[in-house]
């Protein structure tokens, strides 16, 4: 689940550094000014903290009012200067948390956020009801994932397009290119807890744990696309501009350790392979509508409709010119 802090205070993220490190929640900071646009500016299914020291005394009550109207999100107040006279009134207005001067100085742990969610009776499954999917959330990381059990993952199929150039260049060249590409791919997916699950000649299937919130997996795919020229120049040191396609989908599968995936039968895995190998064009980063629900708001406008495939609407990232 995402935590969004509306603040102009330098190093405000230090309060949440233990929360970030736990990797159970992602922490983002947005300018305080964007909260002034009202409740509609608050992304759904998030935990929102407003730093009162970034607002004037006249703005603060209006901000709290906006936050209390926001359905689908939990809000907390950060009060580094102890400006709030009546903390209980905040909770009467629907707040889930209050970080006074002491908590701000000391910082908070992820347990506190979990307590806030329990206090506000927010269950991760609740958020997804509207989507009417049988998601079995696997979490933000790999801690709770056991072989032999079924979970929801984000699937990312990545495959090189330069097949003919690579095939004709000999084994050594082929292994060098695909090896370099694999290392670069790993660099991009690791920050989002992605793992290469299967590797087949020109690419592989990456899976990311899924917690029902905004998925960082999409950011990994996005970065891969914009870093294409940089990767070609840096990693390969060869006179070849690589091209690759990415297909992304969210769905269920039984998890097995890498190398023991031969017996897995999963519609979701089939879908992402079909989408990547039969529908996506060279250089595309496409995703299913199921996945699009979990795109970060900042990236949404970079995706455009790309038709329908196997009964699902498909979106693709705008081409990097």
């Amino acid at each position, binding site marked *: 689940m995402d935590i969004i802090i509306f603040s*102009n*205070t*330098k*190093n*405000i993220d230090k309060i949440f550094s233990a929360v970030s490190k736990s990797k159970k929640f992602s922490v*983002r*900071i*947005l*300018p*305080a*000014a*964007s909260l002034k646009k009202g409740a509609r500016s608050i992304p759904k299914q998030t935990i929102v903290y407003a730093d009162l020291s970034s607002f004037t005394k006249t703005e603060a009550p209006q901000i709290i009012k906006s936050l209390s109207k926001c359905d689908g999100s939990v809000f907390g107040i950060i009060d580094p200067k102890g400006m709030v006279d009546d903390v209980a009134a905040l909770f009467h207005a629907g707040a889930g948390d209050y970080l006074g001067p002491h908590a701000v100085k000391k910082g908070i742990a992820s347990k506190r956020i979990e307590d806030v969610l329990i206090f506000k009776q927010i269950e991760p499954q609740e958020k997804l009801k509207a989507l009417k999917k049988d998601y079995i959330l696997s979490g933000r990381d790999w801690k709770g994932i056991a072989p032999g059990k079924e979970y929801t993952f984000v699937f990312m199929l990545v495959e090189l397009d330069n097949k003919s150039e690579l095939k004709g260049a000999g084994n050594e060249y082929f292994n060098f290119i695909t090896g370099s590409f694999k290392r670069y791919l790993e660099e991009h997916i690791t920050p989002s807890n992605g793992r290469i699950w299967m590797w087949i000649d020109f690419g592989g299937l990456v899976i990311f744990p899924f917690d029902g919130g905004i998925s960082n997996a999409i*950011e990994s795919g*996005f*970065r891969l696309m*914009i*870093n294409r*020229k*940089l990767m*070609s*120049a*840096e990693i390969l*040191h*060869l*006179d*070849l*501009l690589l091209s690759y396609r990415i297909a992304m989908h969210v769905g269920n599968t039984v998890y097995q350790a890498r190398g023991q995936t031969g017996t897995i039968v999963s519609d979701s895995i089939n879908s992402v392979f079909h989408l990547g190998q039969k529908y996506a064009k060279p250089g595309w980063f496409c995703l299913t509508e199921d996945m699009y629900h979990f795109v*970060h708001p*900042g*990236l949404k406008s*970079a995706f455009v409709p790309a038709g329908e495939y196997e009964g699902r609407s498909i979106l693709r*990232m*705008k*081409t*990097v*010119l």
Partner: protein
Amino acid sequence: MKVPSSLVSLTTRAVAESMDVNVMTHVAKEIIPDYDLHERTGFRESMVIPQGTAARQIVTDMVKSGLFLYFITMLIQFHTVGWRGRVYPILHLKEIIREINEAGYIYDPDNKLFVEDPACHKTRNWGVLVPGREYLLAFLRLDIVGNSQLVRKYPEDLIESTYADVRRIVEKAVDKRNGRIWSWEGDGGLIAFYFGNKIVMAALSGMEIVNELFMYNLLHCRLPEPVRARVAAHAGIIEYSSDVEELMKNDPIKETIQIESRFTKPNTLTISTTISSKLEGTIVKGLDPIKEDGRITYYSYSINLEQ
């Protein structure tokens, strides 16, 4: 580097036990061409200088001149490659290198230099550039567009946090390529590259900064508007100085700043032909040429999505 007295003694002993006065004088002259051992020791020309005295004088002079690490690299060369067809095994060389490592410097065999161990410390000159000497370096210049308007428009702490974010992006891109930030004024700065494939490293750092700023503006920017920066890369020979103002007088640095301010659009990297000539042809084909009087003078790189 502050050379501990134990290391001075060990090196003196190693030199005295490994070569005669004639050879050690040649080592010294490789580093300081007009080095006169008789003058330095006070011995008359006709007198023979004892081996221990000569070694002590040379090592002490190297330490005083700030050339001790360079002297050790010469000893490594004499030990491994030799001099005038003969290899001179240097006793205690492993111990000397170990002591230098402990002081925070590691030997870079590609460049035949001791460089700072980035895990221990980072200085502007990588611990090796000597003031007054000339070096070929690559430079990257970054400037945030419209700084004065932004400062007027937004609260100070918001601007400070945003600029700190930009600096973090720059540091991440240049640190992994062994670049050094030579100056930073809040809204931009100058970065230098000296080791490895320095010219390519400067270009790649610039590309990464452009890419990461693009992502930052989409996902994490604190301002209600995107941060726009101009980035330029160029390379050339400069005379190193420990004084930043003196450094800035070098022509290649002035040219880098000029490329950034005159030929670079916001959120774009502009590279000179000195830089582009070192990039793979396919990469250069993906850049936009900038022409002056009908000929290509620069190339630009930016991230643009289809409309």
